[in-house]
Structure formats: structure tokens, C-alpha cells
């Protein structure tokens, strides 16, 4: 018997043991260690959180529809903005990407599952508790956290309301979940690749998640540290951030943004991975400059550790510090530019079709680049003094997070829905989703640039009269964008229930191992490693 046949027979016995071992009902989802089930759980959880955070945003936009205090008190308004930010960052975007990682990485590298399946189960199932605690604080006497998602001390310590401990505990759980998810991704990619799949043969999607996972492992403990310092400052009399006790409130910001800046790349690098998969597929042309894409992703990740203080130009830094962080931040434009140019070069002289995943990908490239431009403007310290903490910043990060990260998530979801469900989605409904989202999202976020330039500070429940007209438009855009997302829900439910049967590879230009298995992907795939050339 040769080694190969031994392996094969082992594999078969292994398969027999596991086949039909799937539990039914709620137990299947509670106890599952299957990467596809856990991916599904992450994606649904993210979508529910996205709608929850969206409802908070709708109330914010209702309050800001007209000048004057209409429907909420200023303190509750601050709770809304705080929890909206936390939910969207930690509850919607990050878990959605982890869902993609769970579903796609094993199938893309030819692995049977994630390397640490039980930990995988746990890293998902602690998340609902974290968000139950966070959202539950709305029903406490003091209300939810009201100090902004950046929770600057001492507003979040000495001057905070009664729910700070709940906030800290919720963030701890989210952090533990993220770290476990990230370790799982790293271990899976390092150990479970199909035998001949070298690192430089991995799909770019896998590369971006690999690098993102390292970022998470590096900075999530920093977040855990800073919330713990916050906790002891608030409840146990320490003075990390209290000047009267020898601490420094600005040090809080340094620690927070040392986490916070890599965090924003944690939310955009996987997006780069997704569109680097979809754009070549619908251009019917290989991704231009694969290796430069890998190096650019790694450069962005490394640079993200030395630019944090560009969030803090107005805190009173020495000139040298301001120059250093300005130059480093401007440098990020170089690898980011390389990525955008490579996507354009991939489309150039391709054979383009415009299925919904491609529409979202093209919108991603253009609108993310607009967010990148405003980012470059914000990097310039002297002008940042004018932009900082205004709606210009709000416009900037919503362009990179909504039309950036979220649009890439939609691109990826439409791209792989046939593989996940075995059915094609309803094409015309998905196009409605795209066009409604595209128009409303720009009505929602583009005028915010003007508001910020004209001088409207962020995080205010009421504003001077010269901001009234744009705020009205922004709110209308917001309501329309919120409603448009329900179309996506309809598309997904319809697609799960039925639709045209999807072939193994519904997109003629698609590449990758995930298209070599049937649609829907069987519960267990690649029990035998595939051959990669």
C-alpha cells in the first residue's frame, strides 16, 4: 500500500464517522463546529446588528432633520451616537468579515474546516452576550454609554454615567471573540493549505484576511488594556487618565488610537480582498499585479502602527510629532494608490459584465477612493485643524466604512450567495438594492463634506441655522438608505428559499477552489486535499 492510498482510506473512514452527524434544530447551531455553519451564524448576526445600528442612526437622523431639539434629549442623543458606532464597528462590519473568513478561507485553500473548530464555535457564541450587555444598558436607569465610541477619558471615567462597567465588559467579550477568531484564521492558513498551495499562490482574499488577523492579534489586547484602565479609573480610584492624580487624559487617546488606527484597517483590508476577487472575475482577466497587491497590503498593515496620532493633531502635540505623523499618514496613500491602480488595470481591456457583485465592486473602488482622498486631506496637519471633529470627518469615515467596507461585503455576499445557498439570487431585486443604495448613500454622506467644511461639529444634537438645508437632505438620504437595506434582506430570504439552481461555477470568469465543489457547498468539503497547480 502506498502512502497515498493509506491517506485516502483514512480520509474515507474519517468521512463516514462525521457524515450525517449533523444535529437538527437549535442544537445544530449551538453546538456546531462546522466552518460553514459558523460562517452563516456570523453573517446573520452581523446583518441583525447592522439593522440594529441602523435603527439608532435613523433616530439620530430624525433628530437632526430640523434645527431644535425634536424627539430626543441631548444625553440620549449621545447614547445613540456612541452605541451606533460601537455596534457598526464591532457588531456589523467585523463579524461580517469573520463570517466571510469562516465560509471561504477553508474552501479557498482546500482545507476541510478551520483549524480550531471548537474555539470557532465559542468565538461566535460569546458575541451575542457582549451585544446583549451593551444594548441592555439602554434599559438601565442611567442609560447606555454616552461618551462616543472613542470613549475619551475623563468623560468616560469621572464624568461617566452608571453603565460604564457594562460597556467595558461588553468590549472585553468582543475583544476575546475577535482574538480567537483571528488566531483561528492564522492557524488555518499556516497549517491547512492544500499541499502545493504556497503562500504566493493563495488567493489575495486569503492574504488580506491573513494580514488582518495579525493586526487583530496585535491590537485587540491594547483595547482590552485601555478599557481595563478606564474601569479601574472609574471604579477603583486609579489615576491613569486623571491629571489630578498624576495621570494624563491625552495618554488615553494615544493608547486608544494605537488600537484604533490598525482597527480601521482591520475593517478595510478584507474589503480589498473581496473586490480583488470579484473585479477579476467579472473582467474575465487575472488580477493585475498580484504580488504588488500582497506587498501593498502588508505595507498598509505595517504603516497602520505608526500613524495613530493623526487622530490627535489638536491635542497639543509638539511640532516634531505633528510632522512625523503627518508624513507617515501621507505615505499610506502610496500602497493604497497602488491597490486602486491595480484594480483599474485589471478592468482595463478586460471583458466586462455588470452583475450585481461587480456593480458593488465598481462602486466600492470609486467611493472608497473618494474616502481616501478626504483621508489624504485630513492627513495634512494644518488643514486638519479645520476638519478635525467636524462632519467632514464623519463624511470621510462613512465613505470608507459604508461605501467601502459595507459595499465590499455586499459584493462578496452576492458573489458567493449561489455557492452558499445553491440558488441564484433574484437579479432584478438585487439591482434595485444596488441602485437605491448607491443613490441614497451619496445623498446621505456627500453633503456631510459641505457641512463639515462650513463648520458643523460632529456629535451635536442641534445645530446653527446655516446647516439646516443640508441636514434635511442628509436625513432624507439616510432614511432612503436604511429602507434600501431591507431589499437585501428580501433578496437573501428569497435566495435561501429557492430560485434558479446555481451551477458549481455560476460566474464564467471566477477562479478559485470554492468553485470546484458543487453548489450549495456540501457540509464537508476537501476532506481530501485538492491538487493545486
Amino acid at each position, binding site marked *: 500500500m502506498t502512502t497515498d492510498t493509506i491517506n485516502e482510506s483514512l480520509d474515507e473512514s474519517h468521512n463516514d464517522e462525521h457524515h450525517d452527524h449533523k444535529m437538527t434544530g437549535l442544537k445544530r447551531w449551538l453546538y456546531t463546529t462546522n466552518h460553514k455553519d459558523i460562517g452563516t451564524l456570523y453573517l446573520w448576526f452581523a446583518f441583525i446588528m447592522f439593522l440594529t445600528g441602523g435603527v439608532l442612526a435613523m433616530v439620530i437622523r430624525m433628530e437632526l432633520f430640523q434645527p*431644535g431639539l425634536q424627539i430626543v434629549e*441631548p*444625553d440620549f442623543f449621545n447614547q445613540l451616537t456612541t452605541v451606533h458606532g460601537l455596534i457598526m464597528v464591532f457588531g456589523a462590519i467585523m463579524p461580517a468579515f469573520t463570517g466571510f473568513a469562516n465560509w471561504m478561507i477553508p474552501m479557498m485553500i482546500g482545507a476541510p474546516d478551520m483549524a480550531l473548530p471548537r474555539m470557532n464555535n465559542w468565538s461566535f457564541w460569546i458575541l451575542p452576550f457582549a451585544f446583549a450587555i451593551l444594548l441592555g444598558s439602554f434599559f438601565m436607569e442611567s442609560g447606555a454609554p*454616552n461618551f462616543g465610541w472613542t470613549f475619551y477619558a475623563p468623560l468616560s471615567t469621572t464624568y461617566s*454615567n452608571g453603565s460604564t462597567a457594562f460597556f467595558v465588559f461588553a468590549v472585553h467579550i468582543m475583544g476575546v471573540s475577535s482574538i480567537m477568531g483571528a488566531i483561528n484564521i492564522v492557524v488555518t492558513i499556516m497549517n491547512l493549505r492544500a499541499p502545493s498551495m504556497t503562500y504566493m499562490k493563495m488567493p489575495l482574499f486569503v492574504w488580506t484576511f491573513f494580514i488582518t488577523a495579525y493586526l487583530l492579534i496585535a491590537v485587540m489586547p491594547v483595547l482590552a488594556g485601555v478599557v481595563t484602565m478606564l474601569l479601574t479609573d472609574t471604579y477603583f480610584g486609579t489615576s491613569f487618565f486623571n491629571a489630578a492624580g498624576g495621570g494624563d487624559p491625552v495618554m488615553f487617546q494615544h493608547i486608544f488610537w494605537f488600537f484604533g488606527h490598525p482597527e480601521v484597517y482591520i475593517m478595510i483590508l478584507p474589503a480589498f480582498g473581496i473586490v480583488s476577487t470579484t473585479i477579476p472575475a467579472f473582467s474575465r482577466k487575472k488580477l493585475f499585479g498580484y504580488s504588488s497587491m500582497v506587498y501593498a497590503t502588508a505595507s498598509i498593515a505595517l504603516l497602520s502602527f505608526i500613524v495613530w496620532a493623526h487622530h490627535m493633531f489638536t491635542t497639543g502635540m509638539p511640532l516634531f510629532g505633528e510632522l512625523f505623523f503627518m508624513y507617515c499618514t501621507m505615505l499610506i496613500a502610496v500602497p493604497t*494608490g497602488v491597490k486602486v491602480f491595480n484594480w483599474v488595470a485589471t478592468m482595463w481591456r478586460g*471583458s466586462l459584465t455588470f452583475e450585481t457583485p461587480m456593480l458593488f465592486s465598481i462602486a466600492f473602488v470609486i467611493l472608497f477612493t473618494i474616502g481616501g482622498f478626504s483621508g489624504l486631506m485630513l492627513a495634512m496637519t*494644518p488643514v486638519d485643524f479645520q476638519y478635525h471633529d467636524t462632519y467632514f470627518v464623519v463624511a470621510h469615515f462613512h465613505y470608507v466604512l459604508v461605501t467601502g467596507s459595507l459595499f465590499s461585503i455586499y459584493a462578496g455576499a452576492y458573489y458567493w450567495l449561489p455557492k452558499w445557498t445553491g440558488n441564484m439570487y433574484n437579479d432584478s431585486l438585487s439591482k434595485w438594492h444596488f441602485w437605491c443604495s448607491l443613490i441614497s448613500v451619496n445623498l446621505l454622506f456627500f453633503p456631510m463634506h459641505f457641512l463639515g467644511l462650513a463648520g458643523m461639529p460632529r456629535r451635536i444634537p*442641534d445645530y446653527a441655522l446655516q446647516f439646516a438645508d443640508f441636514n434635511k437632505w442628509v436625513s432624507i438620504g439616510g432614511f432612503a438608505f436604511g429602507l434600501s437595506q431591507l431589499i437585501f434582506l428580501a433578496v437573501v430570504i428569497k435566495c435561501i428559499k429557492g430560485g434558479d439552481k446555481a451551477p458549481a461555477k455560476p460566474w464564467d470568469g471566477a477562479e478559485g477552489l470554492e468553485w470546484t465543489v458543487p453548489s450549495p457547498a456540501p457540509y464537508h468539503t476537501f476532506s481530501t486535499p485538492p491538487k493545486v497547480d
Partner: protein
Amino acid sequence: MNRGNLGWLFLGSMLSSSAWADTQLNLTKGVTAVSREVYDLHMLVLYICSAIGLIVFGAMFWSMAFHRKSKGAKAADFHESTKVEILWTAIPIVILIAMAVPATSTLIDMENNDNSEVTIQITGSQWKWHYKYFDQDIEYYSVLSTPREQYENQNGSFDGNGADKGTNYLLEVDKPLVIPAGKKVRFLITSDDVIHSWWVPAFAVKQDANPGFINEAWTNVDEPGVYRGQCAELCGKDHGFMPIVVEVKSSEDYDAWLNEQHAMTAKAADAEKAALSASMSKEELMQLGESTYMAYCAACHQPTGLGLPPAFPALKGSAFTTTGSVTDHVKVVFNGRAGTGMQGYGKQLSLKEIAAVVTYERNAWGNDTGDLVQSSDVKAASEE
């Protein structure tokens, strides 16, 4: 009226020229040499980004228009070129350097705080600004003066265009900061409680006010005028309600203003002395107390005295203050309470006002203690 007409009417009202007359689209040029440099830098980066955008998006739209499968486009198979990659790494670096050079020189200007002629300490606190003129013995608080009824939409019908709201709605204060034109004015910025940020767009000055630390900034305004800004760092509940107004006066007017302030300080000191020996009637105390309460206390403790617990406790029936000992009550108002949002008002209010507000709190909302507190009681309690 059918639905369609309503829609057009709505659209018409949104686009009507009167509503858009004062809508500003771009960054202000401001009124100082630095703010104009900042504006030029902003426009430079904006133009560069627009040009790059035009090229990149142009190439994308070109391929979307001409390289589509439906038009019979066949995919080429090039997919890498080291030359091209080097090119589009190098060109952005050159552009970035071209942007960094003017940015650096502007920044060096902005950070040069030397040779100032006037120094003013700015202290942020929840939710007002305090200005103190160095070497002048002038200091005062500057508080939002837009009446509560306006932002709570209490008077008249509200049509969304702010018909019942003043022109400078939320951007007006009782006592603006006054600085001379044509002189370098240095600001020393700090905070009493949480982080605030002092921002006047027309000066291109935005500097955080950090508790326990002092930041520096400066400006030199060419022309007299009134310039408005807002707190730019989330500082709690009324972050949106602590505007900044700066009145820039010509040198002569500024000097006259200084003299006027000195005279007022002297007068206030005399009034304090007189108040100590005077005794006010309950009506007088309650009347002054109510107006003082509404201006300084109602934001947190609410006009109803019910507060917003637990951060801002109720004063109605409070055993700790309003129905407890007079001395303790006065002390809390005078010195504040460490570790809470309650500031000390000893510096902000006159003895007479504190006496009145304490009297008011002890006799309003059913707190019928019947206590009358006079200026001399406040002085005695505060010195205890």
C-alpha cells in the same frame, strides 16, 4: 391637493433660493494670514485629489464603456508589469512631497507662539468658556445666550426653517471674548473637567482643552469683527450648546473696553460689599433665584428640579441639599462636588446670586423650607 403636487411642493421648498442663500459649501478663508494659508493648502489638496480622481475614474469609466463583453470585448491577458508598478509608486510619492512642503511651512507658522502681545487663558468647563486676561485682572465666563425656548421649540409654530429662531441661533453668548485687531494674541487653553476643544474657524485655531494641561495657540486678526465658533470635542450632554464668540476690536476700542471692564470689576466689588450688609425680601430672592437657576442650573437639574438622575440628581425633596442644612447646601453650590459634574459656582456667581439661587431651590417645587438665605450667609458658609 393630490400626492404628486405635494411632492413637487416639498421639492420646491427644499430648493427654494431663500433657504439656500446662506449655505456655505467650502472651507472659510478666514480673517488671518494663517487661515488663508490653510485655505490655500486645502484648495491645493482638493485640486490634486480631483485631478487624480479624474484620471483614475476616467480610466475606469472608459473600460466600463468600451471594454464590455456585450460590445464583444475580448479580455487581454496582461496581468503584471514591474515597470508600471514602480511608476505608480513613484509618481504619488512626488505628488505627496509637493503637498508636504507647503503643509510643513504652514504648520511651523502655526506652532510659533513667540512674541505675543496679549495673553488670554481659556478654560473650558461643562458647558461654558472662561476667559482670563493676563496682567489685566479681567476674567469672566461666556455662556450660550440663545433662550431655552428657542432650542426646545417652545414658542410658536415651527416650520423647519427656524422662523422662531434668531439669526445666530446657538452661536451667541452673553459675554464674548474681546481681542484687539492687528496684534498677536496668545491663548493658553485648559479645562476644569472633561476635554473640550476651542475652535474658531475664521482664525483656523482649534486646540483641545485638556484638564490638568495647558495648550498654546495664537492668532492675529486683521480686521475688527465678530467671529463665531463652537466646542469641537464631545464634552457631555450640552456639547452642542457651548459656542464661542470672539469680538475683534480696533486697538483704541480694545483699550476703551479694558477700561470699562476695570470699572465694572470695581463696581461689582462694591456691590458685593453692599450686598453683605443688605437683606433682600423673599420676593426679590425668589425672582433673582429663578432667573439665575434657569441660566446656570436648569441645564442639568432641569427647570422642574427633577434633574436627570443618576448623573444629575433631583433637587426636589433632596435630603442632601435642598431640604437639608443651609450651610451644606451653600457649600455644594459654592465649591461644587469633586468627582461629579457639579461645578463650584463661587467664582461664576456673585454672593447675591448664590444666596438667591439657594433660596429659590429651597422654596421651589414643593421644597417649602421657608428658608431665606442672604449674601452674608453665603459668605459665612463658604468661609467655614
